[in-house]
């Protein structure tokens, strides 16, 4: 298993390198520079600043300079936050995004799995239809609509929860962003679980179990749940990625100082190093997450392990 993990990680290096090269070329290809503003800089000041950040060098040289920094674990200085480094900004933003993402992921898994299972067991019933229409709505209504509506109802009208992030203390500030972020995933996981459970319940081994006279509860818990989880589990990797990218919008709507907001602002401000740093960080994260999912897959399904 360890050898497998190591091999997979080694295999990820070219992928990561490709991501860095493409991202580097793309941010530098975007028109406009980090120091353009309506109040244009006098030429001598602009030159000084560009020289200070080596932006006056040819692109390949800039790339090599950047890569040698990355290999040493230095993602460079932010262009927009003049006295902060990219690593420092990621260090400040990632814990926030991570906490938000984990909470949303936990909520989505818990509610999605239960709702999907219940709906599958009562296939065609009223409950099934209600759950599935909720799921349909959850998938189709975009986050940037759900967020402001929740704020309007629960913060502005009812005053139950804070509307924003900064300055609010305690767990209350997590509630609305986590729900907003989890909603589409709850819906997706519920639909996936339902479909998978229905399929599993129709299999031969379940019929055998029934024929042996086992209680329905036992059949579900011992025999049906594990195979049901397989397609759901393989969706978990993409789900985490979706939650991470979904947080870009949620962080904007709620003003949360996470990586998503730095990413968007960084792109708009042409903060080359910040954008690149976050891309590299996310790419590495997703590679590792996919690896973890694959390993978990093997834990749950012995057939995968043997292959």
């Amino acid at each position, binding site marked *: 298993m360890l050898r497998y993990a190591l091999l997979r990680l080694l295999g990820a290096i070219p992928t990561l390198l490709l991501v860095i090269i493409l991202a580097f070329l793309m941010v530098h290809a*975007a*028109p*406009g*520079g980090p120091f*353009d*503003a*309506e*109040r*244009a*800089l*006098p*030429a*001598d*000041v*602009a030159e*000084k*600043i560009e020289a*200070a950040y080596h932006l006056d060098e040819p692109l390949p040289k800039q790339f090599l300079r950047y890569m040698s920094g990355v290999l040493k674990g230095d993602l460079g200085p932010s262009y*927009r*936050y*003049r*006295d*902060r480094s990219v690593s420092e*900004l990621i260090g*400040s*933003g990632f814990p926030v995004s991570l906490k938000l993402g984990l909470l949303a992921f936990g909520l989505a898994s818990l509610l999605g799995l239960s709702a999907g299972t219940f709906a599958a067991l009562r296939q065609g019933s009223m409950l099934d239809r209600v759950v599935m229409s909720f799921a349909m709505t959850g998938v189709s209504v975009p986050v940037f609509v759900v967020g*402001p509506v929740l*704020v*309007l109802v629960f*913060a*502005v009208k009812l*005053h139950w929860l*804070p*509307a*924003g*992030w*900064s*300055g*609010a203390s305690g767990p209350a500030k997590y509630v609305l962003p986590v729900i907003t972020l989890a909603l589409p995933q709850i819906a997706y996981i519920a639909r996936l679980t339902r479909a998978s459970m229905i399929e599993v319940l129709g299999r031969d081994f379940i019929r055998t179990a029934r024929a042996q006279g086992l209680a329905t509860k036992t059949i579900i818990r011992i025999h049906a749940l594990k195979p049901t989880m397989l397609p759901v589990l393989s969706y978990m990797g993409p789900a985490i990625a979706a939650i991470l990218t979904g947080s870009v919008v949620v962080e*904007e*709507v*709620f*003003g*949360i*100082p*996470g990586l998503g*907001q*730095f990413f968007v*602002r960084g792109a*708009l*401000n*042409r903060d080359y190093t910040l954008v690149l740093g976050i891309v590299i960080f996310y790419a590495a994260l997703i590679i590792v997450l996919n690896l973890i999912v694959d390993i978990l897959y093997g834990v749950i399904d012995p057939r995968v392990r043997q292959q």
Partner: protein
Amino acid sequence: MKLIRIFLFAALLLGVAGCGGADDDGDRANVLHRGLATDPETLDGHKARSTQAADVLRDIGEGLVGYSATGELVPGVAKSWNVSDDGLTYTFHLRSDAKWSNGDVVTADQFVFSVDRLIDPETAAFYAQLLDDVVGFEATDEVTLVVSLERPVPYLLSLLTHPATFPMHPGTFAEYGDDFARPGTLLSNGAYVLTGWIPGSLVTLQRNESYWNNAATAIDEVQHHVITQPMTELARYRAGEIDITGVVPPESFEQVKTELGEQLHMAPRLGAYYYGFNLTKPPFKNNPELRQALSMAIDRELLVEKITGRGEMPAYSWVPPGINNYAPPVLSYAPLSQDERNQIAQTLYKAAGYSEDNPLQLELRYNTSDTHQRTALAIQSMWREALGVETTLVNEEFQVLLANMRDKEITQVFRSSWLGDYNDAHTFLSVMQSDNAANTPAYASEEFDSLMARAAGQVDLDRRRLYLEEAERFMLADHPVIPIYFYVSNHLVSPRVCGWGDNILDYHYSQHLSLKAVE
């Protein structure tokens, strides 16, 4: 409907509440919450660039002079000053009780230290050119600072309110270098000390107990909340989490005006929204008649009333009204009705060689924003109806538009704006000088430049003013830009905030404000 009535009633009740008491307000006691549209890029006054950074810097630092809540110059670290007869030497007498937040005394040489760093090319400060006309800052003793000028700068005092000219603590700089401006290391000589900064979220300031005028500071803590989305800021204001908003979202302006009218503060400010021409390429190069035709065909009154609708003033000059010691000359056709303007515009348009069969085709570039888009659409249709111009709207991301404006290769007409840095006509007019980096249309007129140079040499304020007005009149007749409207500041100010003053610079120092209990 019922809800709106409740809101209105509440607004009325709150509006009449006086501003006398300083009662505590439960757990939100004495903490002011302000909205900030973007993160300060740094709190190093020399490397900061945005108005938001300057807003925070004015809370934590103090220059030789400052502004009152209503925008009048008031003494700061300098308790008094004299100006020599030729206007070339200012002698500032510093107060001896001015202190840094660690208790050190603020001395004249710390201003010199700061200015030296500001103008040092190695610093690459954005505002280095602010002090272009200053020959020297000299500390003759601990409390006396002599500023000598190359030529009279009547707005010098106004410049010295800019955070880039605030003093620096040399000891901190020696210890931390360029990283000195962080919570925990940044010393403050103003009313507040920086105690926390979460990038993208919150800048926290606490009362500076060592500040010489600490007794006059009413609010103990100020939280500047970074809220990039105006709609989010409005929601947070409505939820009672923010006391002062940085803006009011245009799409909600009407609703805000109806429901929160008493809390809405609108004031003219030093800013012009304009369309610039690329004067380096046809069709606008050497074609003032065509430029005038396009300028005349824009119905500015209709635009500010129907399209922008936030109290903006139609612009017929480059320098906004309300600036010190200046009366902006207006475009020659300002007194005419729009119909009359359109008729003249048509004549000019034809004289420039265009007609119904041979219409002018142009590209109008603006950066992505709802307001810019609606303005551009309206102007496109005004030009089409009055002249038959075929305008293609090109919507670009801001950094792309800026790069195109700088390159001057593909731009024809572009949207831009200018915000004044100090209360003097020079902050606007100097933009049009041929050597100014912010001269977006690339306007180059020897006559204008020489009028500006002559104005710059005047000690006598009235004569200087005449030259400046003459320069503007001359420039306006050349139509390098189309001034469209002058900005107004829009803020929502909670009824629990006292001491707010509307002013043309849109500066609102937290130290002038206080809080009271409402309800």
